[in-house]
């Protein structure tokens, strides 16, 4: 148990940068300084002359030797306005964002490659860039893809329920608008992989810092024109992912590099490269109206939703897809009559959009939670009361939401009541009153999140595939494999415990294998780990347990109904003298006597092995195909902040969170995810922002200017749990991981707005940086 942690704490990591293969060389990407330009010429001859440089790959070679990057989703098939531009990992004739790779240098040492990079002679013809989404929507805008005629990659309309009836019944119609800045996860380890192509066998072996090796294999083999059975990807230790490692476009070049040079190639991404070419997210704007009754009932929401996709084409629709849950999650925890969203995914000359914790559903939820704040303020009803009035009630589950999502279970009022108590809201509101008299501004914020977890979406590669395999080894130990790739979220610990509990085996006897592309499955994202791969594991383990019990009974000459196993020892509950260890059983089954000594019926069915593979698919989705998520966990946040109105600085005086993720598989693991997610959301609320100039230059391209919370920027967090089991999963467990940064971001914003209510400030956007908060205050004072 905790072998992984013991390894990592003592320096025995297997992160990509730790991997060394004989004759290994290094790959460095060279990127465009322009946000938008044609590549007129590229001459690599001087770079190739540098001693130690093996190859320089440009767009020309890529187009010759690779297929275009495969699409990972495509909704044009069902008639949606959905475009999938052709994309290669290295630009051949046009660059569309600052940093877009124009060459990859392969050399004996990274420093040699970096030195040679300046010897590549590139002639660019700069084109007018468009880095503002509103500009991009104008007819005169520069076009990111000329052949499109405009910059609209996606245009969707969602019309749920009866929006006209909702607005007809309205006693008030309130304007609502909300903007989230461009942000992302930027884990401490950036992306990277090692690729080793063996000419003799034709096998491309790769080790990658990835969230989904099986999906990666699919993707990379397609791009490199290799059959999938000639590509194998092993997930290295992953130094954080948060969605940012759910892409493999650069890995294709590393693979190509190994094929071309015949040497193993390592690529370790620098942090700046991740900022420039990564995985960006949020950067959304909502503009609309909410129809309400004077008692705080929310009838309906209409809005226009804009998402700045940057050059999302590089991520092949993986991120554009997020617009769907963004719109479908708007109803959140509430009973509404109608929701109508018109959504646009616009391309600009910015880095590719990708997944980041929350992915898409986070956006609609935050919009709704800002709507609640507006309603609370305008109708002068406490924010929690607005929620209590509109909640889906406990007896209504499973609840078919307007969007088609079927919420499995929950007790939203209980979660909210509990957090109000943990957050000491009444006491803080009293303090708030007293503080105002002294010219101090304290605010109390409330937020509630229903997080759809565990995706199985149509028309994409994220359709819910999963597999687990559990085996007893010949010496009586346990091996567990599944697509629940360990990325620091606690997958190994959870799988060990789940397997141990079901099998009756000692924790220390269980080895969880590193995830590889051998295991068909979708990997980890969308909070699916505890649902899908764990569901498969549970099914496999249960079947294996039944088989083990039957075999133990056979060898102990006891009825299976009286056989139990505890701490890896089988014993008869009827006759305590009948005992055998799992080790002894394994030896019997494998070798002595082996299959010839097994019960006849098992021999006849060829069930002679102590290994079971299983899969799992959400019954919720089976029954309701428009419901793309398996479970719906919920969470509530209370934040108490003090705003220094002279500087705009925000201090967090109290933070409480209550989480309902159904059955908790491991409390530490869940709490670790919650704490980490909350702090990420706080960073988004107060300081994180990817700032571009008008000409598409990314100014926030390092940790210096992309300001994430340090230990001194993170609060103590009071945490409570409620467990309403999901009726649709094996143990009633729900997915976790993405709710915390959703609620925390919006609760801080709500708290700031509450603190500044004497100034009648509406917080229009995040992050609420110190400068912005001060600006809002000065503006409200007519300054």
């Amino acid at each position: 148990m905790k072998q992984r942690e013991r390894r990592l704490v003592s320096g025995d990591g297997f992160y990509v940068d730790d991997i060394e293969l004989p004759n290994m060389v290094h790959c460095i990407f060279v990127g465009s300084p322009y946000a938008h330009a044609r590549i007129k010429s590229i001459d690599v001859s001087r770079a190739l002359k540098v001693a130690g440089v093996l190859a320089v790959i440009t767009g020309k070679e890529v187009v010759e030797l690779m297929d275009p990057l495969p699409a990972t989703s495509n909704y044009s098939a069902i008639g949606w306005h959905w475009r999938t531009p052709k994309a290669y990992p290295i630009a051949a004739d046009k660059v569309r964002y600052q940093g877009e790779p124009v060459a990859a240098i392969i050399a004996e040492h990274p420093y040699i490659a970096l030195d040679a990079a300046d010897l590549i002679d590139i002639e660019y013809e700069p084109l007018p860039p468009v880095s503002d989404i509103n500009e991009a929507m104008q007819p005169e805008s520069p076009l990111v893809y000329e052949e499109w005629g405009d910059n609209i990659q996606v245009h969707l309309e969602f019309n749920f329920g009866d929006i006209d009836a909702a607005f007809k019944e309205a006693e008030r119609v309130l304007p609502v608008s909300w903007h989230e800045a461009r942000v992302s996860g930027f884990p401490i380890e950036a992306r990277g992989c090692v690729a080793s192509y063996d000419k003799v066998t034709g096998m491309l072996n790769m080790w990658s810092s990835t969230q989904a090796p099986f999906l990666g294999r699919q993707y990379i083999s397609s791009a490199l024109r290799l059959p999938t059975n000639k590509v194998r990807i092993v997930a290295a230790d992953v130094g954080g992912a948060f969605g940012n490692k759910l892409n493999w476009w650069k890995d294709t070049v590393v693979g190509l590099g190994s094929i071309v040079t015949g040497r193993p190639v390592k690529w370790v991404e620098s942090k700046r490269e991740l900022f420039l070419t990564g995985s960006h997210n949020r950067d959304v704007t909502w503009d609309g109206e909410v129809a309400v009754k004077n008692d705080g009932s929310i009838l309906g929401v209409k809005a226009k939703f804009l998402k700045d996709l940057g050059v999302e084409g590089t991520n092949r629709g993986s991120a554009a897809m997020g617009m769907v849950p963004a719109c479908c999650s708007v109803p959140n925890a509430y009973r509404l009559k109608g929701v109508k969203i018109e959504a646009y995914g616009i391309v600009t000359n910015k880095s590719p959009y990708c997944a980041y914790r929350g992915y898409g559903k986070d956006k609609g939820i935050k919009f709704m939670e800002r709507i609640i704040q507006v309603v609370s303020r305008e109708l002068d009803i406490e924010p929690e009361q607005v929620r209590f009035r509109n909640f889906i009630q406990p007896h209504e589950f499973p609840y078919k939401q307007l969007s088609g999502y079927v919420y499995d279970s929950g007790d939203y009022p209980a979660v909210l009541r509990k957090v109000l108590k943990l957050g000491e809201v009444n006491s803080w509101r009293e303090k708030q009153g007293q503080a105002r008299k002294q010219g101090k501004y304290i605010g109390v914020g409330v937020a509630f999140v229903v997080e759809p977890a565990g995706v199985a979406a149509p028309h994409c590669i994220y359709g819910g595939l999963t597999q687990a395999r559990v085996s007893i080894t010949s010496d009586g130990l346990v091996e567990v494999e599944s697509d629940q790739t360990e990325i620091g979220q606690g997958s190994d610990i959870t799988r060990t415990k789940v397997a141990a509990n079901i099998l009756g085996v000692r924790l220390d006897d269980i080895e969880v294998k590193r995830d590889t592309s051998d295991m068909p499955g979708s990997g980890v994202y969308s909070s699916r780990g505890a649902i899908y791969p764990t569901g498969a594991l549970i099914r496999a383990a249960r079947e294996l347990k039944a088989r083990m019990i039957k075999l133990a009974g056979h060898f102990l000459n006891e009825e299976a109904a009286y056989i139990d196993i505890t701490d890896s020892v089988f014993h008869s509950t009827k006759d305590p003298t009948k005992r055998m260890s799992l080790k002894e059983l394994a030896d019997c089954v494998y070798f002595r006597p082996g299959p010839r000594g097994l019960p006849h019926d098992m021999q006849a069915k060829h069930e002679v092995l102590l290994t079971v593979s299983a899969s799992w698919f959400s019954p919720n989705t089976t029954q309701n195909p428009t419901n793309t998520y398996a479970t719906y966990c919920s969470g509530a946040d209370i934040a108490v902040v003090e705003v220094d109105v002279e500087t705009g600085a925000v201090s967090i005086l109290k933070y409480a969170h209550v989480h309902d993720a159904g059955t908790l598989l491991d409390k530490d693991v869940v709490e670790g995810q919650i704490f980490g997610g909350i702090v990420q959301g706080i960073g988004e609320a107060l300081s994180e922002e990817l700032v571009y100039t008008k000409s598409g230059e990314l100014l926030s391209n390092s940790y210096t200017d992309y300001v994430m919370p340090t230990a001194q920027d993170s609060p103590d967090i009071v945490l409570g749990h409620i467990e309403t089991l999901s009726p649709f999963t094996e143990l009633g467990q729900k997915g976790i991981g993405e709710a915390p940064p959703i609620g925390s971001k919006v609760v801080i914003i709500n708290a700031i707005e509450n603190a500044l209510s004497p100034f009648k400030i509406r917080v229009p956007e995040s992050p609420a940086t110190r400068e912005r908060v001060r600006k809002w205050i000065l503006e409200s004072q007519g300054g």
Partner: protein
Amino acid sequence: MRNLLGLRAIPQIEYHRPTELTEALKLLAELKEGYRIIAGGTDLVPAARRGGVSLPNHTHIIDISSIKELGYIVKDDGMIRIGAVTRVSEIGVSAVVKEHVPIVADAASQLGSLQVRNLGTIGGNLCNASPAADIAPPLLVLDAKVNVRGVDGQRLVPVTELFTGPGKTILAAGEILAEIQIPITEATAGSCFIKLGRRNAFTLSIVSVATLVKVKDGIFDDVRIALGAVAPTPIRASKAEEYLTGKETSEQVIDEGAKIVAGEVKPISDVRASEEYRRDMSYILTKRAINRSVQRARG
């Protein structure tokens, strides 16, 4: 051509490590140019990787961090003398500095992170001459001087004359900033250092302010105000100082003085903050710093 890279490699360098100051000065005199001095490396190394500093291939890097005679903190005749190669972390925790020139310790203990403070030196912070150099405002209000050594001799330069522009100092080729001399504040004076960044810790200053006041019978006897990150160099706000001297230490007067500071500063807008916000925070932080200094002066 310089192609955009994630991070550049530090170019090839010629590394030198003199162990004595005379050795270092002789080396600089021989090289004349084409060299950079390094001690902690906390500015030079990241700048080289980001491409923010131009280091031609085979630049001579003179590592002065081993020159033991340049690392010390002593109290000497009404003065605190700090060797240029003294690590910022040492200055932040030094009992001598905390007792006699506390705002220098305050600035030092808030500079960067613990890891950066353990490498960075006071001389490096000054010679890098960032307009936002945290150690500068306290030294400016304390009327500190730096001892600049060359192979032919030495000169004493007031810190007010040290900075000539962003990243530029008055040091000529061949010179090494060897020592910082800080007159000890009178016990009756009150001082304060405040910095404001984009988060609570480990943050570049958007505005930093140091103030030193002497108060006599409720009147400002002596007022010094210095700011960082709001002009091409760290500056003294001389107009505000002039205004406040001789006036009563009332809230309105202090407020007025702080407003004058806001008019004196010349901030720029960048990704970290806008000109307006910097100007505004010059006002707010100066007001707070002077108020706190006045309280400390009385106490």
